[in-house]
């Protein structure tokens, strides 16, 4: 294995400063993505950051890398296409809970069951921020938002259970108030061969007055501190359901499985983008002959 030459975080400094509200959890996530890329020594030319739409989905504009700022809910298929076109790229998807667990959840489930070698960092603030504070798929029951003035009466989605049961092979939770750990979790996800989902508590200081920094600080604990090993499917689901007074941070589940890329025959000949264009005379003629 080649020696990793770590790169400084400044390598990934974007062209413009983030436009997030002061205190937004997404600042910490941005820094953690940059830290993780630096730790793994990924050259900015080989890093592709893909997002959908939402406050957090503005992230690709704030990092020095290749980026795709796609449509609401469509970051996963766009990233899948770009990744399959050029498997030499490290593809990291960044977005919010509305984007990934709401409008885009269908794609997420299928990407996980395919076990594509992609890392997905979800900045989960349990609210729609860009659209000024409506309920999201992870908003707690009873939470009053602009679209649920009498309190949300839908049960929130559990992204970790969804990920583990859908076939993601690296499932973790981070907190933007715990940046050192978050950088390691993201680096672990990128280094992992297979689909990595990292759900990150990234508080919205403007529209979510319930799930705040103090809210999480009082409740979170680190799985690693309890000697938890993320290799047991059923135990990981138990931990994934933990909520309320004690909320786990860290890697919940990790397993080495065949990836989509391992099984796609055409990729065995190298990245598509580096393959020869067009057909050989022999193949071309045999295609005609089979139709006669």
């Amino acid at each position, binding site marked *: 294995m080649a020696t990793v030459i770590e790169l400084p975080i400044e390598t990934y400094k974007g*062209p*413009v400063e983030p*436009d997030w509200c002061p205190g937004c959890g997404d600042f910490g996530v941005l820094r953690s993505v940059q830290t993780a890329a630096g730790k793994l020594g990924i*050259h*900015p*030319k*080989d890093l*592709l950051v*893909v997002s959908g*739409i939402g406050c957090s989905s*503005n992230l*690709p*504009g704030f990092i*020095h*890398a*290749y*980026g*795709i*700022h*796609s*449509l609401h*809910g*469509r970051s*996963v*298929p*766009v*990233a*899948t*296409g*770009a*990744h*399959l*076109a*050029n498997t*030499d*790229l490290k593809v990291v998807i960044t977005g919010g809970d509305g984007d990934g667990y709401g409008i885009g959840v*269908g*794609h997420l*489930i*299928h990407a996980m069951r395919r076990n594509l070698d992609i890392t997905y960092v979800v900045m989960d603030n349990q609210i729609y921020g860009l659209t000024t504070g409506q309920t999201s798929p992870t908003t707690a029951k009873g939470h009053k938002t602009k679209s649920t003035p009498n309190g949300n009466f839908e049960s929130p989605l559990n992204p970790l259970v969804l990920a583990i049961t859908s076939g993601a092979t690296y499932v973790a939770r981070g907190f933007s108030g715990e940046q050192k750990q978050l950088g390691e979790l993201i680096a672990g996800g990128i280094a992992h061969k297979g689909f990595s989902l990292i759900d990150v508590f990234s508080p919205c200081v403007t529209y979510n007055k319930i799930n705040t920094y103090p809210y999480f600080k009082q409740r979170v604990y680190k799985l690693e501190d309890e000697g938890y090993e993320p290799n047991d499917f059923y135990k990981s689901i138990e931990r994934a359901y933990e909520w309320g007074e004690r909320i786990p941070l860290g890697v919940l589940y990790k397993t080495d499985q065949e990836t989509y890329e391992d099984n*796609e*025959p*055409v*990729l065995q*000949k190298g990245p*598509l*983008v580096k*393959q*020869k*264009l*067009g*057909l050989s*005379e022999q*193949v*071309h003629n*045999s*295609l*005609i002959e089979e*139709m*006669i």
Partner: protein
Amino acid sequence: MQEVTIGIAGAAGDGLDKSGDTLAKTCGRSGLHVYAYNCYQSIIRGGHIWLKVRIGDEKVLNHGDKLNAVICLNQDSLERHAPEVNEGGVIIFNSDKLKLDPTLVPQGVQALGLPMTEICKEVVAEHGALQPIMQNTVAVGAVLALAKFSLEDASSVMHDTFAHKGEKIINLNVSLLKVGFEYANANAKAFTKEWTFSKKRRPFLTGNEAIAFGAAAAGCKFYSAYPMTPASTILHWMANHATEVDICVKQCEDELSVINMAIGAGIGGVRSMCGTAGGGFALMTEAIGMAGIMEVPVVCVEVQRGGPSTGLPTKTEQGDLFQVYGASQGEFPKMIIAPRDIADCYDSTVESFNVADKFQLPVLLISDLLLSEHPETVDPEAFYRDTKLDRGELVTEWSEAQGKFKRFRFTDSGISPRALPGTANCNFVSATDDHDEESILISDMFTSSPIRRKISEKRFRKMDLLLSELPAPKLEGPADADVTLVCWGSTSGVVCEAAELLTAAGIKTNFLVIKYIVPFHAKEVTELLTKAKKKISAEVNFTSQMARYIKMETGISMDGHINRYDGEPLEPREIMQKVQDILAGKKLDLDVSEADAREMAYHYLRTHFSEKLRPVKVTQEASNGYGEPIWNVELVERATGKRGGGMKIGARTGATYSFEKEPVEAK
């Protein structure tokens, strides 16, 4: 042109498509030209299937409106298609199983019942009992004899078709062909003269196969799709040939994923394509705009079928022009191309990839069920190999000394040199928000009206350049025509033949095929149509979408419209008749014809009484209290021929007013 049309009718699952294939490939190998049209239904077994194969010694442009021979595989088919056979023709059926009512046989038509058990005796003795489907092969043998086709070429097709099943199965099928061939020669008269076989071997393929083949030849590396008739056969071709042509083929969870993956692959740097039908395309529209604003090359195939909504999944229509034209919010450059025949499906697909790459925009290739699913023979030269694979302006190296790489640089041509992710010093974001030259968003924090104006103009400059590179449409046929027919897509084949028929009948007719819809040759089309005398559009839709589009682009209205929207393609004499009616100032007749009334009765009987009854006599009577003239349909019991009841169908509205039955066992 020497030509014959052969019909094969039966139920889904009867294997008639295989028989049609044998027939078509035989002719394709002999050097004849073939056009087949399969009027199938969206069910796996049962239902009525009607395959027409038109064969000529010159290029055949459509399925035509004649019928020289019919092979009927069940009783229903026999009753419905026997009366359609032209004089001199033949009705072929298994006389052990089916009974042909002599009153259904038109004057001068031969009835050739095949006593299967008797004539297959020796084959059964050698090979064992036959599966029912194998009797089709005997019938094909019979038609080969009477159509004067080559038994030798048919045998060679059998060799290739059954190569994977071994010598014994090949011999069995060749023997069955011979049985039918010899029996027909001894018991019926040929319905055409001897052919001159050029022996030029031509591939026999569908439009979808040509699109898929064209994509592979153009260097497509990624194809995504969600199964949807009538686009699925592109996916099937791609999947079957993936490792041979090195295309990564992805069946996705939905069409949103399909188009977004294809666009992602385009950004990633490969030539990518996706395909769908109208319903799937409706889901894709938002992403088409994304490709537009991000300036990503991608090819999207939209195969139209009967709409709206689920509509008629297995029937043809040209009803999606405005959907494709209007796809996605906002304004952005795109190309819409409508191939006119199967050779053009190949050519247009290759062109689509080149345009997409050079101009960095989405190319929407619009086909229809008839074009995509019907097979025909095409000269092998149409599938040229030395395609110019123009990847456009690609930056492969950039040094920091050159300054900041501007992905969306404002250029004269509007085309900004593109870099692929993985290229050093060219980092940029492909953004759905509008952006400046460096791809920094101008949508939120740094809004800028002049930059928005200049990037819009930059994007649209590409369209001017693209238009200047596309060949303008031309009138085909006599220059001094009395009538100019206007059409697009698969309708061009039948319009071409109708124009020839009209010209031969003394009404000089030429025609205009619109292939490039966006960008549109407004100036050239205005010039052509201003000079044209009577302009008539012919489209397989209700609202004459191309005629409306031309009016929007040129201000020119048609003098008449020909429309068909019953799921079936237009036919040459139908267009001819309608042109004559329009010239005579005749009002459009939408009444229920006698043939319509008979088909409507069949529909009612099939859906309510299985197939126990059938219509016999159809007569019109006065309104009789229904407020409109009435078609009276007499019904008989299929098994006994005894009177079974009657139906009354409105001659204007088509309403089923009454159904009375004699005591007969209900379904």
